[in-house]
């Protein structure tokens, strides 16, 4: 076993021990190289997003100088050429809809109309193909046309190309830098699948009043697909958790009764369905989930890693600690507005509060924004090594 393989094994052991609520040799640290890197590289955000080779090269150049355990990925969340091929309306990307150094914007619309519920519920995959794809893609507006056919060929090819490029990049980072990836697969809460991309926030909130039974039936129809999505893109891997960004479940988008009725049952069923197949969820609880911690504690032990963003960390530890691994602790705003000294103090305090019994992974609470300072990001991982030894 060479030096990098040993490093990989050491980091993997740290990660898996913490995921199982144990106490490794030191607190594992999760780290991502986000959009903030752009202003230190002489490139534009557009280049980073469009040119995957360049983006991956920047990551490769940075990794040797960084000591962390779990890699969350590089700065380009999406690959815009795939969206451009279909004329996607979903996003505006840097240099294509917004300024070349502005982050992407989600263009939320009612891409699924209220009248579409029955057809969607009857056969979700077919409805997505027959109605949703043409609704979100200018190039697919005339199915069967020359442009539509070409766009589908290009879109599917881009999906495969991106998978190949990123697969090779992750393999290289693993072999050359002993990197352990955070997770495999991507899924969501069924209510978020419905409320984010299909009905939109306004649509789904009106539906709670006007057609609550349809919302519940749609969430039930989506649930088995979201269980499948957690494993499908992951090649059935069960060693690592599936990333699940959770949106409308954060307090106070929904009131507690709505949360209990519409959000939680299908999310819980998704997690239980995944766990029955051996797959854990990275429960990426963006925002504040404090009022729902008792409900979340009903889940099977170890079936999630609970991400602490603005959820009360002490309550999360009190209610979930010991049964579920906790991850987070560092507010993303601290990396933008803080100083390295303040970041280090915060990391030390976080370890005292959350890490003492194990079952904890240090990370930023949410996605680190483009205005974060590199010195603060580096201070976080330096402090983790300084104070994180058990």
């Amino acid at each position, binding site marked *: 076993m060479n030096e990098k393989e040993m490093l990989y094994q050491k980091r993997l052991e740290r990660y898996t021990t913490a995921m199982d609520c144990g106490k490794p040799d030191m607190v594992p640290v999760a780290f991502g190289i986000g959009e903030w890197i752009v202003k230190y590289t002489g490139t534009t955000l557009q280049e980073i997003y469009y040119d995957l080779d360049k983006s991956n090269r920047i990551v490769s150049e940075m990794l040797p100088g960084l000591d962390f355990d779990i890699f969350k990925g590089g700065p380009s969340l999406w690959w815009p050429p795939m969206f451009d091929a279909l004329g996607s309306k*979903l996003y505006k990307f840097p240099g294509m809809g917004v300024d070349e150094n502005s982050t992407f914007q989600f263009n939320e619309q009612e891409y699924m109309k209220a009248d579409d519920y029955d057809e969607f519920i009857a*056969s979700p*995959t*077919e409805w997505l193909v027959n109605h949703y794809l043409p609704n979100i893609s200018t190039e697919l507006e005339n199915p069967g046309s020359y442009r539509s056919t070409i766009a589908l060929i290009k879109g599917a090819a881009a*999906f495969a190309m991106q998978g190949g490029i990123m697969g090779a990049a992750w393999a290289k980072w693993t072999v050359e830098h002993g990197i352990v990836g955070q997770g495999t697969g991507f899924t969501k809460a069924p209510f978020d699948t419905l409320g984010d991309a*299909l009905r939109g926030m306004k649509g789904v909130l009106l539906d709670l009043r006007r057609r609550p039974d349809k919302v519940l039936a749609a969430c039930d129809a989506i649930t088995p697909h979201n269980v499948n999505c957690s494993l499908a*893109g992951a090649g059935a891997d069960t060693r690592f958790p599936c990333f699940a960004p959770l949106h409308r479940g954060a307090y106070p988008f929904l009131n507690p009764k709505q949360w209990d009725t519409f959000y939680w049952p299908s999310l819980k069923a998704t997690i239980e369905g995944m766990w029955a197949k051996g797959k854990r969820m990275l429960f990426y609880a963006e925002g504040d989930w404090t009022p729902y911690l008792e409900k979340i504690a009903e889940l099977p032990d170890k079936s999630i890693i609970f991400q602490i963003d603005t959820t009360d960390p002490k309550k999360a530890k009190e209610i979930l600690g010991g049964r579920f691994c906790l991850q987070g602790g560092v507010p993303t705003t601290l990396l933008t507005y803080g100083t390295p000294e303040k970041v280090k103090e915060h990391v030390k305090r976080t370890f005292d509060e959350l890490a003492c019994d194990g079952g904890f992974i240090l990370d930023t609470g949410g996605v680190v924004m483009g205005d974060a300072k590199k010195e603060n990001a580096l201070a976080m991982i330096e402090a983790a090594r300084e104070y994180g030894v058990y």
Partner: protein
Amino acid sequence: MSEKEKLLNPDPGVCLPWKVKVEEIGEFPGNEEIAKKEWEKLDDFAYNFIWFWAQR
């Protein structure tokens, strides 16, 4: 709605079930399992591509 256009309501991970395709083919003189295995891999790829757009 013609016979071919009836809703399939495919399972998760499936777009066009092999059993539908094989019924259309009729007699299968070779090893069906070889064809089925590769069909299902591509079908799963298509499924992931479709659901990718709904999981934004």
